């Protein structure tokens, strides 16, 4: 009996690899374009079946394996160990000794080769140049060098630090001193990695706390501190940064420090502090609300929310409680924006000329005081130009103290889940703040404003 095209294709897809079968299938594919297209689709199905039948937990295992490889000691050492294991197998000791020599030579050459390749990649590989001095004082410090990560050695006395060195302090404080006078004081229990990226000081804080006294840095090469939750850029100031598994808290005692997360950027000034959590959201606490404000365009002057419905001072819109108690509406001219009963809200609206036109890097800044029970604040904008809504959610401090938040508008998410955000030039006509779950006491907003930061290196007006 003669096999059909599908028989042959089925055998091929199942793994049969005879030269005759290959020739026949090649002819089948060449003769019939439809069959060829169908065969291609079946081959993709065959290839993806292995993926489609994989268990969900395989995905986590794959990612962990990538992480394990990144954390593993350098492959040059592993290669040397593999050579070492192999060369002790021969029976003759003499032969073994000779092979050891050859193996070590090969491993050394291979390691050099690897180092050369890595350099050619122009990646941030460790080099031997000193970037700072470690002054442990009486502290017990352990160091894992950039050239042999994972091997921790106890450090006694002053020593130099090089790129990609990691350091952990176990008891009393230790200082890292830079040539320009910048000093980072690591508190006990702190683990950091130091680096130098194109002349910029770079410190990664895995856990613990440090305080810093930073000499003036070049504006294009600030000292950068990175935590699992945020990035801190310092041009020159005094501050402390505490990192836990849950969040990172920055407190500034002099100057100003910029805190950057995936959601936005905030400038923490003298006397202020800010906390960034694992979601990238942050809240900022100031010593007193209503203090000096940065240059910017005020959109909303001031309003408080009383009894969850009516702002006491509101120039553009007002939230009116529905008579049946099912929530409230934001009313202004022809607007009737529903507020659900599960939230407490305030709003601003101007349908005719809009609240403002968005410029790149615009930030919405406001001070808030939320009562216990309110877990999150949702800020929502309506973009008249694109006829779409955009929102940001931030956790509330959960205490009756004032805190300041600064949100980058370009980081707002779209209601319709489309990737494009608010575009520069778009007219924003409606702004709503709401807290959820609805608290029993009112929440307060103050100093609601759009802060427009001039681009770097732009000439002063």
């Amino acid at each position, binding site marked *: 009996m003669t096999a059909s095209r599908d028989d042959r294709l089925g055998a091929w*897809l*199942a793994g049969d690899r005879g030269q005759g079968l290959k020739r026949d299938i090649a002819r089948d594919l060449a003769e019939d374009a439809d069959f060829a297209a169908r065969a291609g689709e*079946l081959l993709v199905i065959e290839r993806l*079946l292995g993926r489609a*039948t994989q268990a969900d937990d395989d995905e986590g295992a794959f*990612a962990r394996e990538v992480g394990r490889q990144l954390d593993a000691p350098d492959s040059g050492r592993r290669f040397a160990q593999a050579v070492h294991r192999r060369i002790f197998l021969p029976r003759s000791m003499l032969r073994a000794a000779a092979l050891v020599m050859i193996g070590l030579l090969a491993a050394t050459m291979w390691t050099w080769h690897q180092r050369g390749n890595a350099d050619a990649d122009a*990646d941030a590989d460790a080099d031997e140049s000193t970037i700072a001095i470690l002054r442990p004082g009486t502290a017990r410090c352990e160091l894992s060098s950039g050239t042999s990560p994972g091997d921790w050695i106890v450090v006694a006395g002053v020593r130099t630090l090089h790129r990609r060195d990691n350091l952990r302090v176990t008891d009393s404080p230790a200082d890292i001193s830079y040539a320009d006078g910048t000093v980072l004081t690591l508190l006990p229990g702190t683990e950091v990695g130091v*680096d130098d990226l194109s002349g910029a000081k770079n410190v990664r804080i895995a856990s613990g706390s440090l305080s810093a006294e930073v000499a003036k840095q070049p504006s294009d090469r600030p000292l950068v501190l990175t935590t699992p939750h945020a990035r801190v850029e310092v041009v020159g100031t005094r501050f402390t940064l505490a990192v836990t598994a849950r969040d990172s808290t920055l407190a500034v005692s002099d100057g100003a420090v910029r805190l950057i997360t*995936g959601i936005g950027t905030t400038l923490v000034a003298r006397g202020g502090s800010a906390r960034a959590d694992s979601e990238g959201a942050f809240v900022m606490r100031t010593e007193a609300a209503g203090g000096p404000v940065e240059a910017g365009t005020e959109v909303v002057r001031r309003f408080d929310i009383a009894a969850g419905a009516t702002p006491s001072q509101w120039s553009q819109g007002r939230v009116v409680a529905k008579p049946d108690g099912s929530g409230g509406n934001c009313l202004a001219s022809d607007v009737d924006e529903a507020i659900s009963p599960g939230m407490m809200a305030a709003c601003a609206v101007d349908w005719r000329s809009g609240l403002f036109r968005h410029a790149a890097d615009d930030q919405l800044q406001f001070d808030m005081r939320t009562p216990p029970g309110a877990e999150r604040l949702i800020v929502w904008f309506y973009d008249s130009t694109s006829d779409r809504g955009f929102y940001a959610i931030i956790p509330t401090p959960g205490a009756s103290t004032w805190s300041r938040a600064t949100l980058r508008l370009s980081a707002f998410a779209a209601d319709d889940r489309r990737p494009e955000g608010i575009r520069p030039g778009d007219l924003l006509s409606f702004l709503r703040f709401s807290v959820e779950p609805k608290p029993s006491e009112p929440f307060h907003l103050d100093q609601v404003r759009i802060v427009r930061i001039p681009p770097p290196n732009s000439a002063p007006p």
Partner: protein
Amino acid sequence: MSDPLPAWIIAARAGDTQAFVRLVEACQAGIRAYLSARLSDRHAADDLAQNAFIISYRRLAEFRDGESFPAWVRGIAHNLLRNHLRSRQAQTPTQDAGSLSILDDQAERMADRHDEQRLVETLRSCLAKLPDDQRQLVHARYVSEQSIEELCKSVGCKHSAMTMMLHRVRMRLRACVNDHLTEAAP
């Protein structure tokens, strides 16, 4: 909630491998599906995907903020795949029975037309609709990775009958996937 990838990228750039592991978790399905659709060896596809992520970690400084991270890694994976196919071609003699370039070209066209991750998800929903006996066969072949000979022994049929049974399953799945994709087309 906004996209967490930028924060993870910032942390990974500073050497936080755990943040990078989160990035891998978020992006791996698409990269692995992309490579799997173009390689017959699933394990080789996973090796390439792993290399793509490791290279992307080393080159994070080159990643431009604001661009799509998955698309960037996919570009790296594409280059690795091209090198892999080239070196395989160089290693095997011209009379090699293991490749059929026309078929590979057709498969590539099919994969290019669709998002591979979506193909995998559609395939999953189609697998759930298979009759029990065919689903068990798929499980034995692709999860337990039984050879055709082992399958023949357990079912009690000839080699050619088994390859045809598997082929009928593929054809049914292909029809189901095409129906889904046609329905979903705008």
